[in-house]
């Protein structure tokens, strides 16, 4: 039993958090949100040079052979200032899927450049009727010559409007199958949609997009298992981000309580507000603790040991994490509901994380249905 980060992991956490503070303060997120560019490929390249994009991947594909723990460390610390580069979408959703499903040639073509910061990825798996079920899709892959034609519509594809390559799930005759599709391929029609947290996502129409056979990741029908696994990584990733959000919001709130004066005293001297702040602290430490469990479990092959803590972590984000976000806003009073103050940006990001990769009901139901937890 050891909950301490090793020395390299501590160093990684410090480097990323210093970067966030010094090179990408919240104003940067705000500026890129307002001018519509979202994020900066030059910063992405720098992250590649620093090695952050390769932490969970094998050395054979250009990664650093670390574990998902390193990934979670990067995510948590980037989120302390809402760094807008698409780490979760590209490294976790796209990268982890590609790493598991692709062959060596595909890794070399799509994964290695992403790790180097030369390109980005997106995972187009979600459809209007999916509701957290990766198999509930209607997009089809019909054989065409030696390849396939993809027909269907994907929604809320994170980074889907900018990624160099999309990983698309479609039903082939053998079941759910994954394909790599260049975003600029003929028949890929992308509409950009703004999201509640000040980012962008894509609605993607696949209008009989022709893909060659070597664009297929793995066998026909192998996609659902891989995506299921990716969803666990993604849920653990969202929780790690949530830890960054919750601890930052708590700190901002405690600072505010210690400076704002009303009735001639600091409002942090009021017991009602002190007790609220302590309960926020408790929820955020519960979130951090179960997040640590979920980042370790994420790499477990056996779903019976993997899923329990990941669902418990996502559940804590949905309950405790969301509660911390709500109370942070409440304790800031009027200024908290202005766009000008940063607290609301974190608040909205927490809700986005809550909605992604399984909400509260989804994870309660999943946890409850696992025989191992009973």
């Amino acid at each position, binding site marked *: *039993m*050891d*909950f*301490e*980060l*090793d020395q390299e*992991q501590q160093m990684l956490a410090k480097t990323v958090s210093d970067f966030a503070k010094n090179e990408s303060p919240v104003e940067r997120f705000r500026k890129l949100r307002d001018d519509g560019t979202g994020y900066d490929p030059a910063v992405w390249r720098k992250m590649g040079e620093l090695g952050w994009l390769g932490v969970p991947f094998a050395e054979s594909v250009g990664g650093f052979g670390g574990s998902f*723990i390193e990934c979670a460390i990067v995510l948590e610390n980037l989120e302390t200032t809402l760094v807008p580069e698409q780490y979760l979408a590209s490294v976790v959703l796209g990268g982890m899927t590609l790493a598991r499903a692709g062959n060596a040639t595909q890794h070399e073509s799509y994964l290695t450049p992403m790790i180097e910061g030369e390109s980005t990825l997106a995972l187009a798996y979600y459809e209007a009727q999916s509701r957290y079920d990766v198999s509930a899709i209607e997009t089809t892959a019909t054989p065409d010559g030696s390849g396939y034609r993809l027909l269907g519509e994907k929604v809320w594809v994170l980074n889907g409007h900018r990624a160099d390559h999309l990983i698309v799930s479609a039903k082939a005759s053998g079941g759910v199958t994954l394909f790599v599709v260049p975003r600029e391929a003929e028949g890929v029609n992308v509409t950009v949609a703004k999201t509640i947290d000040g980012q962008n996502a894509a609605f993607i129409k696949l209008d009989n997009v022709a893909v060659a056979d070597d664009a297929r990741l793995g066998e026909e029908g192998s996609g659902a298992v891989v995506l299921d696994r990716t969803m666990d990584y993604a849920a653990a990733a969202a929780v790690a981000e949530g830890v960054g959000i919750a601890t930052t919001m708590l700190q901002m709130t*405690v600072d505010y*309580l*210690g400076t704002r004066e009303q009735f001639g*005293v*600091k409002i*942090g*001297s009021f*017991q009602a*507000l*002190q*007790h609220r*702040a*302590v*309960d926020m*602290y*408790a929820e955020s*430490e*519960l*979130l*951090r*603790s*179960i997040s*640590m*469990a979920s*980042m*370790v*479990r994420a790499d477990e092959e056996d779903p019976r040991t993997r899923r*329990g*803590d990941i*669902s*418990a*972590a996502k*559940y*804590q984000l949905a309950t*405790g994490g969301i509660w911390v976000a709500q109370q942070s806003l409440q304790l800031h009073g009027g200024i908290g509901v202005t766009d000008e103050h940063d607290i609301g940006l974190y608040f909205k990001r927490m809700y986005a994380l809550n909605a992604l990769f399984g909400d509260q009901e989804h*994870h*309660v*139901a999943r*946890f*409850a*249905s696992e025989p191992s*937890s*009973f």
Partner: protein
Amino acid sequence: MNLTFTEEEDAFRQEVRAWMQEAMPEELRRAAQGAGGLNFEESVEWHKLLYAKGWIAPHWPKELGGTGWDATRRFIFNEELEMVGALRISVLGLSMVGPLIMQFGTEAQKQRFLPKILRGEEFWCQGYSEPNAGSDLASLRMTAEDAGDHFIVNGQKTWTSWAQNADWIFCLVRTDPAAAKKQNGITFLLVDLKTPGVDVKPMLTLGHAPAFCDTFFDNVKVPKENIVGGLNQGWTVAKALLGRERTLLALIGPSRHVLHKVKRIASTKTVNGRPMLEDPRWRAKIARLEMRFRAHLMVSYRALSDQQKGKMPGPEASILKLVGTKLIQELTELAMEVMGESSLTWYNEGVCAPIEESIGPYFCYERSATIYGGSNEIQRNVIAKMILQLPSR
């Protein structure tokens, strides 16, 4: 990071579990699982079995009768102990006054008191709270007047749990009424409950265990050699204990124990003709609390991970009492809810299953969890000040 116990630690858990299976007499096991838990005589019997095995005080230094186990083994041992529902009644001696005597006591006090605590020959109770000194403990009024080689003690202590069975009481008493700061006039004093002038009046608690007492002191003569930690230094001694209680009150074992009970009861009760445990809505209800328990467990594992390395637990350990006591209440409430109308039962041995008989009194008992050991409201005051460093008025 590593979230698993080592093979040796797992083997240790099996060893402890196997010993408890074998060494705990059937009637004790039944009593531990039944209404009200172990009574005093049963607890003493269990204490002596653990003492004979050498396992009664794992957290004591080896030379004083401890086991020499590391923090992880002590954690595992406690979990297993709590899983059979057999907490030691002598917590007040073994975990509270014992360690304080080790830290602050004289050599003579150590030799006089510690072996008897260990062997289960003397039991202790705590004399802190008074009718007008609860959360505001420092305003306590029980007096100890200097009478040469002894004090004359007068006053009343309340919530003196298990005083009717105890031999000794450790008290906070006022020795300097004129001290400028009220915390500075208090002394930590050991009193023999057999001394003339001491009167113990037990009262029933909600769970119907006679756990609480009022203890009255009428001109009780107490030798000065019974001071621990020096005259007027009582507050410092008491505070050392509060720090220790933190991880003790996470209630990991009891929570796990109740969670298992909830599931066992839910597997025997039916709803719409099938076991409640197969009903998705009931499963979801149980799942929510089990997930909460997992998060709480990870906070205590973080503290354990620090202790294992010989470090003080981080600030997050301060929330363990707050979260753990609320959780055990929610779990016992769920157990009541799962039982439905059977939750009406109240000490009817043989009417309901023993596991069901045990729920009501335990549910009632755990209402005290958010009050004892520093009420949760006081805990919040302390965390707000010490950890969040919020301004005071």
